[in-house]
């Protein structure tokens, strides 16, 4: 697996801009960029009524499960999945090797519009991720101040 790029403020702002544009044009409620391993990278829109961390984990699992099904039916991939609900629906589309775009929208909103505007959004998101990828692949975070002598400080059991 290729490494994910380092994203800085500028990247997150541009990715956020793409998500905001998608929300405005498609009338979707919430849009997320997630990692295929299940991590939430960034989101826009209404985050209060949804548990986005858990949605990221489950949506990536559902998407990846569908890719396995695609292989079983001799398809290279199912590039997107659509879950239709009575109140809200969800559309997930592949961005690149590592990332996915998730759009959550009210059930009365046209999935066609979400798909139509998600297509070019995904391409622009992929371009920004590529820019980030080429910027500084070797950057690191200094964790040296962490006291590893006492791991019990990380997770404590209630007494």
């Amino acid at each position, binding site marked *: 697996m290729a490494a994910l790029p380092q994203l800085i403020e500028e990247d997150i702002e541009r990715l956020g801009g793409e998500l905001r544009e998608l929300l405005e044009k498609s009338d979707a409620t919430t849009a997320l960029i997630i990692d295929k391993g299940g991590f939430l990278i960034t989101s826009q829109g209404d985050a209060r009524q949804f548990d986005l961390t858990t949605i990221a984990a489950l949506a990536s699992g559902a998407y990846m499960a569908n890719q396995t099904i695609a292989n079983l039916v001799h398809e290279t991939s199912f590039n997107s999945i659509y879950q239709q609900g009575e109140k809200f629906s969800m559309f997930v589309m592949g961005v690149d090797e590592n990332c996915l775009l998730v759009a959550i929208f009210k059930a009365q909103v046209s999935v066609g519009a979400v798909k139509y505007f998600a297509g070019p959004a995904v391409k622009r998101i992929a371009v920004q991720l590529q820019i980030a990828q080429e910027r500084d692949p070797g950057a*690191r975070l200094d964790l040296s101040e962490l006291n590893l002598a006492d791991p019990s400080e*990380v997770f404590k059991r209630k007494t």
Partner: protein
Amino acid sequence: MAIINQATKELQVKVVYYGPAMGGKTTNLVQVHDHVQTAAGNKGKLVSLATSSDRTLFFDFLPIEAMSIKGFKTKFQLYTVPGQVIYNTTRQLVLRGVDGIVFVADSQYEKMAENVESFANLEDNLKMLKLNLADIPYVLQYNKRDLPNIAPVEYMEFLLNNRDLQVPSFSSAAHKCEGVFEALNMITRMLLNKFISQGTPQYA
């Protein structure tokens, strides 16, 4: 691989509990969820995708925010895999992006073959993802030590930890929360050590 988001100052780490069916993987997550001390709002919901008979179908998922390192929030995402043999494709999916593994072995004598088979399956599935177990921090948890028909720890060490570089192992009775936090804290320590010694993983 772990994600560090420089813009939002977050470190996200994925730990997977792996092992044979009915070994206690889900119980580990339930105990962590029930007993972990966290600041308000730092513990997410425990999500279980289970069958009607409470067997894990896809995975269990528990997000926890643990601590701040140099201003970075550390978010741990704990997953289990379904232990049953038929769900191997699902196990491969859950292993994608794994940073650390807790292998939960069943200490009962009659489960030794399943333990060994599951461990070999773990190595095979990592290879499918172009990963090598030797490169991934992992610990062994010998669960159900409170049952009467258990194999000696030394025997389990011989079966599962008989390598050039032995990994930490823990005796546990997960349903009593014994050995649960010890294993979780050790894998956390190993993960953070790896990040420091080898530089950080992937960035986002």
